[in-house]
């Protein structure tokens, strides 16, 4: 495919008057677990624009993805939930261009539909009789939640520190937790179906401004499909993509 694009397709691309014709092949996009639902929709929309590109989305914890990139897994675009992981990848394998923030997420207090425990504010996270869930402090959503709770002067008494945010939302949606701090995107009702998680209700951040995290999209220096990777990163900044992010509960820069 790269051979064809480089030699035979050159004049073709020029005559059609569009660089898009040269884009094709597989595009490997590694995204933070919290981005998975929106990334799949964004990938579908991008493929509509570039039918010859097959976008492969891999979602996992940002640290696990970083390890995969550093170990040489096929990766074109990397979008972690924390700058720490981006810095590690930039220092060790390099980026093709500066990473660009494509979306932001905040943490919210969320409860299962029905809110049987009568949770109203973040202060309820300190009630020992309730079943409280947080993300583990080691992962971005857990770090963000703890920063915010510390700022609000609340000492939570969690019953579980889930190792990934999807697992936390699943327990909350099943009613096996009374309250949890999750990403706004996890508790946002989405017109395009946020994977059946409509059993969760966001109470917002009840103590001032919610802490935020940024997702920066980085094209890797040794991306096997650099042209498509750059096009995908550009696409994430378009108004269409920004609309999709907003629809899934993210804020856009």
């Amino acid at each position, binding site marked *: 495919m790269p051979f064809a694009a480089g030699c035979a397709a050159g004049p073709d691309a020029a005559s059609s008057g569009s660089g898009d014709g040269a884009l094709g092949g597989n595009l490997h996009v590694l995204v933070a677990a919290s981005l998975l639902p929106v990334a799949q929709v964004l990938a579908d929309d991008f493929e509509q624009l570039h039918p010859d590109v097959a976008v492969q989305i891999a979602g996992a*914890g940002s*640290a*696990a993805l970083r*390890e995969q990139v550093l170990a040489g897994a096929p990766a074109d675009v990397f979008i972690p939930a924390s700058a720490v992981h981006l810095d590690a990848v930039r220092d060790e394998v390099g980026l093709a261009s500066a990473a660009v923030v494509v979306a932001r997420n905040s943490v919210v207090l969320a409860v299962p539909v029905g809110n049987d425990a009568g949770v109203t504010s973040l202060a309820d996270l300190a009630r020992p009789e309730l*079943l409280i*869930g947080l993300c*583990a*402090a*080691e*992962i971005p959503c857990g770090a963000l939640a703890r920063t915010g709770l510390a700022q609000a002067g609340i000492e939570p008494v*969690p*019953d*579980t*520190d*889930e*190792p990934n945010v999807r*697992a936390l939302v*699943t*327990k909350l949606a*099943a*009613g*096996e937790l009374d309250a949890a701090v999750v990403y706004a995107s996890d508790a946002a009702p989405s017109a395009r179906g946020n994977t059946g998680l409509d059993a969760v209700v966001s109470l917002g951040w009840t103590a001032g401004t919610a802490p935020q995290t940024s997702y920066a999209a980085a094209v890797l220096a040794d991306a096997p499909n650099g042209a498509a990777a750059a096009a995908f990163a550009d696409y994430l900044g378009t108004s269409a993509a920004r609309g999709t992010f907003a629809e899934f509960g993210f804020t856009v820069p």
Partner: protein
Amino acid sequence: MTSASASQDANHSDRRSMRRSPQELPPWPVAILAAVGVVLFALPVVGLAARTPWTGLWTHLSSRFVVDAAVLSVVSSVAAAIVAAAVGVPLAWVLARVDFRGRSVVRALVTLPMVLPPVVGGAALLFALGRRGVVGGPLHDATGLLLPYSIWGVILANAFVATPLVILTVEGALRNLDRRYENAAATLGASRLRVLWRVTLPMIGPALGVAVVVAWARALGEFGATVTFAGNLGGRTQTLPLAVFVALEADRDAAVAVSLVLVALSLGLLIALRDRWWPSR
């Protein structure tokens, strides 16, 4: 292994003659594929050892979260092995000895956790025994008992994945057992319970030992069902595998150090097991 261990007297002379037989050289395809097999399983251990921060090893291993997780792991995996034996041996006996309709369905059902992704098993346990679960809901309403987020949940999740190993091993041993000894005991007037206790169980002793230790090792390494059903809280439900997983996110050296302990423990156990119970000589 079970046939040889079951009827010692009958096989004794055979084994003795096999022991004296000259060393055999494998045909070359067998030798090559066997070598590939060894490399496949040795490489990850080598990789782990290569990444291990040997100098700071003790600092990592003596940290609070590792000690807490280790204690919880030992307690919960031993408890799970006991539960697995207590439930698995009777089940194996019924499956091996009682011919009833639907036996193959029951056998498939009780060994399902072996093929089920552990996370699915954990989610199924949560939907059954969680606060809103079909059984857990009424149980919680009546007694206030809550299995998830407690050591009981960890033990249950561990036993769920470990018990099938006991069932399969013990059922195989029971099927290969020479029934004449049990029949003789019964003829001499021993009750069925006495025959089970004094004849059957001692005769399958080696297989039972292997079954319980393998179940214990499986419970010690259990991750998916535990985290899905019991959650992850340091000092309460965070076992060593969960601690490794969480530490991988933040402190790779600590995670590798703990992983090494798990590998060393399991490897040592399996080597000891081979020499102790499996008829290798």
